[in-house]
């Protein structure tokens, strides 16, 4: 779950990390009042869940409260990358001596949280890491042991900070690490973290992302912060295909289906899943020249209706000629039930299953019964002796107009 900047600021503030005297406003009048309260020049920032605010004109500077109100009115009307702002953040234009970067994120490869600190803040940390690796300090945290300030200090010291600067930055990074753990954040980032002329550190911008599965644990705190939990906060507007698949899944408790087609424009529909099969099979199709029309996941012993629903939605997508029904291996999901579902989808759409299903490769529970169904409708299928790679290759060959030999090579 992603947070707006103003929400991230509130979370950071709760963790005891100093922030500026900002104001979240939903009208120009509120922005004027916030600017008056702050006094002096201000920055007006659009509150949208997308990047590129500065380039799009979503960040503007004001010298007076009237100017702040004027900018707020313009920004509140400004759509950025298809996102409407939920408000603006009015922030004092701070007198900054130096900008730093501090973050604690979940390192999926190490399966542990990782602290990051740089004395080159305010810019893209990936760019800093690539061009100036000596300016980025890193350090992993334990999933079991308490977080000690000393671990944060080691990371900060790696980029050369000493004395009171080191001590003050250490306190911020250690608090950020505890925030990341306590709030189940996949990313807790402060960029820039500013050192002001009096030597104090203050978070000028924050970016927080919470593990979706953990949101329920923080419901009370999120409600206290005014976070609207009914807001799905999608990265993009879901397509009709995605909405329909979600609705089919929600209507029937048996099994699970998911479908995504954002960025997919191919002609081969994928009804895939099980045991990591979705990612592997999508990659296998693409690596062999195929063009997937979607990504999907099916498993958990879905009903015939649910398997049919997913297959129908995939087949109804514009440009889809055939579907490949493939999984790694199934144990509780039944092969015959999925076979019934996908064949029924073809029949209800007036399509010949033998022509429409490029390949059916689902080894596992009730496969013999499934093969009887596939035989009846002339659908090409294969068992576990054919690898996922080979099965994907056969589907690609078929949709590209070639046949496929027994070993999966296009003829």
């Amino acid at each position, binding site marked *: 779950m992603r947070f707006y900047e103003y929400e991230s600021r509130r979370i950071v503030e709760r963790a005891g990390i100093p922030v500026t005297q900002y104001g979240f406003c939903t009208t120009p009048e509120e922005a004027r009042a916030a600017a008056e309260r702050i006094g002096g020049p201000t920055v007006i920032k659009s509150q949208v869940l997308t990047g590129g605010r500065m380039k799009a004109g979503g960040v503007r500077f004001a010298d007076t409260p009237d100017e702040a109100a004027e900018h707020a009115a313009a920004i509140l009307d400004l759509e950025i990358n298809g996102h409407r702002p939920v408000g603006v953040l009015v922030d004092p234009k701070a007198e900054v001596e130096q900008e730093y970067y501090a973050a604690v994120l979940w390192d999926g490869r190490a399966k542990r949280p990782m602290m990051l600190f740089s004395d080159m803040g305010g810019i893209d940390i990936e760019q800093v890491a690539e061009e100036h690796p000596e300016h980025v300090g890193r350090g992993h945290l334990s999933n079991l042991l308490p977080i000690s300030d000393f671990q944060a200090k080691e990371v900060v010291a790696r980029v050369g900070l000493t004395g009171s600067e080191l001590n003050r930055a250490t306190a911020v990074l250690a608090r950020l690490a505890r925030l990341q753990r306590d709030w189940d954040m996949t990313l807790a980032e402060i960029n820039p973290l500013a050192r002001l002329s009096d030597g104090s550190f203050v978070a000028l911008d924050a970016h927080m992302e919470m593990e979706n599965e953990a949101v329920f644990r923080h419901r009370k705190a999120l409600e206290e912060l005014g976070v609207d939990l009914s807001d799905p906060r999608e990265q993009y507007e879901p397509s009709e295909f995605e909405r329909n698949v979600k609705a089919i899944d929600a209507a029937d408790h048996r099994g699970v289906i998911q479908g995504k087609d954002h960025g997919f424009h191919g002609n081969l529909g994928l009804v895939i899943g099980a045991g990591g099969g979705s990612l592997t099979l999508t990659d296998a199709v693409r690596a062999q020249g195929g063009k997937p029309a979607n990504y999907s996941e099916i498993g958990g012993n879905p009903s015939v209706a649910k398997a049919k629903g997913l297959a129908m939605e995939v087949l109804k997508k514009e440009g889809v000629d055939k579907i490949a029904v493939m999984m790694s291996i199934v144990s509780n999901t039944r092969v015959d039930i999925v076979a*019934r579902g996908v064949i029924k989808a073809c*029949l209800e759409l007036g399509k010949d299953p033998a022509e429409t299903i490029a390949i059916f490769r689902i080894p596992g529970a009730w496969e013999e019964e499934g093969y009887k*169904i596939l035989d009846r409708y002339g659908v090409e299928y294969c068992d576990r002796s054919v690898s996922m790679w080979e099965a994907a290759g056969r589907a690609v060959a078929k949709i590209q107009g070639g046949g496929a030999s027994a070993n999966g090579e296009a003829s």
Partner: protein
Amino acid sequence: MSVRVDDVFIGIELTDEAARDPELARRLEEACPVDIFKATDSGAEIVRENVDECVLCGLCLDAAPPGAVTVHKLYDETTLAR
């Protein structure tokens, strides 16, 4: 005479006697994990939209007297019966 409902893959058949037995209808409704049978005051109804959901578990066969229920696998033309 019997009552039979076929979908694409599965057909369900009840003898007339079984279809008119409210007590058996209640047992069939309780036994079937995919709600193929609906108990009414006059006996059992076969819910067409659920027929193809049959998981071939045989619980309906166990719940009914021998010969009362037959499950037809239309794709291989075999039956399940007791």
